[in-house]
């Protein structure tokens, strides 16, 4: 997996890839009402990389994904996707550029059946997976395609939440804790899926609490604390960085 690492291990929190990154986040700030959640987040994600955001609860990982997607009430700074500034765009415009979001709470619609949930996000580009390919990836969904979306098990709902954004043709996937609360066998299946998606050229920004899981799928890890990115650890150096990481995560 080390060959996928594009960033020299400079030790700096923000190490720019050699070429322009697919996603460049600079000085990103976000607020919910009066509370100031992000205080200037900086990081890059290169094309084809799987990158994680690690950090304790409340460090701002989920808010970072939401801010990239444009679903927070107020944000400032810069989010550049494929060379275009997106900080002023509404979330539907950002989605149309080719960014797709799988929220932490999964967001499966109760009034839609499984197939309607799967077909809901519109295609924004060529090159998305076909429905047959998604069913191949998650065979459970095919069997249950006429069930009400929220009647699925937690694991199946997570597969549906990931599956439906693969159809759209988006090249950057924002996955918010896809393994949270799931049985180990399902976590493994989702891990294999992420590796497969990476092989197919998807770029993935992953929020994870479980860094043992993160280590099996990612190229690089950014560590967040108090609404900022404080460190970057290439996956190859994870073992060496373990004491530091334990301190960051407080485990």
């Amino acid at each position, binding site marked *: 997996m080390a060959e996928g690492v594009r960033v020299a291990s400079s030790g700096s929190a923000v190490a720019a890839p050699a070429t322009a990154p697919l996603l460049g986040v600079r000085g990103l700030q976000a607020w919910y009402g009066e509370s100031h959640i992000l205080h200037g987040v900086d990081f890059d994600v290169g094309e084809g990389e799987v990158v994680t955001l690690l950090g304790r609860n409340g460090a701002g990982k989920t808010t970072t994904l939401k801010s990239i997607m444009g*679903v927070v009430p107020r944000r400032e700074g810069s989010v550049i996707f494929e060379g275009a500034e997106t900080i002023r765009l509404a979330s*539907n415009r*950002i989605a149309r550029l080719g960014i*797709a979001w799988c929220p932490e709470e999964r967001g499966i*619609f*109760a009034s839609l059946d499984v197939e309607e949930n799967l077909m*809901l996000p519109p295609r924004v580009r060529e090159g998305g997976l076909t429905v047959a390919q998604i069913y191949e990836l998650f065979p459970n969904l095919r069997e249950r395609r006429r069930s009400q979306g929220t009647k699925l098990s937690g694991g199946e709902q997570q597969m549906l939440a990931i599956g439906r954004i693969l159809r759209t043709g988006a090249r950057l996937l924002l996955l918010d804790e896809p393994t949270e609360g799931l049985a180990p066998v399902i976590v493994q299946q989702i891990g294999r899926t992420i590796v497969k998606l990476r092989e197919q050229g998807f770029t993935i920004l992953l929020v994870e609490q479980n860094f043992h899981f993160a280590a099996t799928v990612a190229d690089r890890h950014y560590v967040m604390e108090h609404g900022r990115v404080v460190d970057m650890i290439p996956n190859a150096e994870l073992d060496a960085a373990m004491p530091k990481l334990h301190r960051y995560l407080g485990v």
Partner: protein
Amino acid sequence: MQALFGQLLVGLINGAFYAMLSLGLAVIFGLLNIINFTHGALYMLGAFCAWYILQSVHIGDFQLGYWSSLIIAPLVVGAFGVLIERTMLKRLYKLDHLYGLLLTFGLALVIQGVFRNEFGSSGLPYDIPPLLAGGFNLGFMFLPLYRGWVVVASLVVCLATWYVIERTKLGSYLRAGTENPALVQAFGINVPLMVTLTFAFGAALAALAGVMAAPIYQVSPMMGADIIIVVFAVVVIGGMGSIMGAIVTGFGLGIVEGLTKYFYPEASTTVIFVIMVIVLMIKPAGLFGKEH
């Protein structure tokens, strides 16, 4: 026997209007979270549009009438709905339900006040279109052709609306948007536009009901205020969340009202509210509503 079927037909007619109006209210409440008190005024505007078209709109020597009103009035009132949503309602979505209710209630009073000032409170006559004048003798009762048309047309409109919302892709956006608009927008759907068009659709549906009502009831500034109170009771009984619930409850309660007129006329104006009280005590979310 004649009288019973006569009252049943009156009940079906009222039910047709209850169904079309409560359907629009339910769709608007679902997506916009606003209890639209202007709905009665929009219904009245539809009837006045039809009246105005019949009085004074010509194309050359051709006098436009009822049939063109069925298209034009919903378009005009739908456009008015766009104006209301874009300039006023849009600012209220993040606030409590109460603000939308107060704004639409005030707006309804203003619209009705302006029309009462202009046209007085007595009704204006609107003739049944010549094509639908007359009726059939069914043996057990006389069926005026226009009333039969209203029941069939409104049933078709209601079922078509149900089909679009529950069975099509467009409807899946609407259902999903009702649950989680932020996520639907993050998938690339222009949700603010969808909200505007939904309000316009509800307004157009109210106007269509108003045009269809014009030859039956008189066209008057307060016609909407009278019916909307009953329609709100219908929505409460049916439950806010359900499209089919609004249709079934609308027709059902119209029929119940008609039957009451035959069997116990004294209770005919209160029976719907009595049912509302009972339903609220037994099943507060309404007959078809989802408990949360």
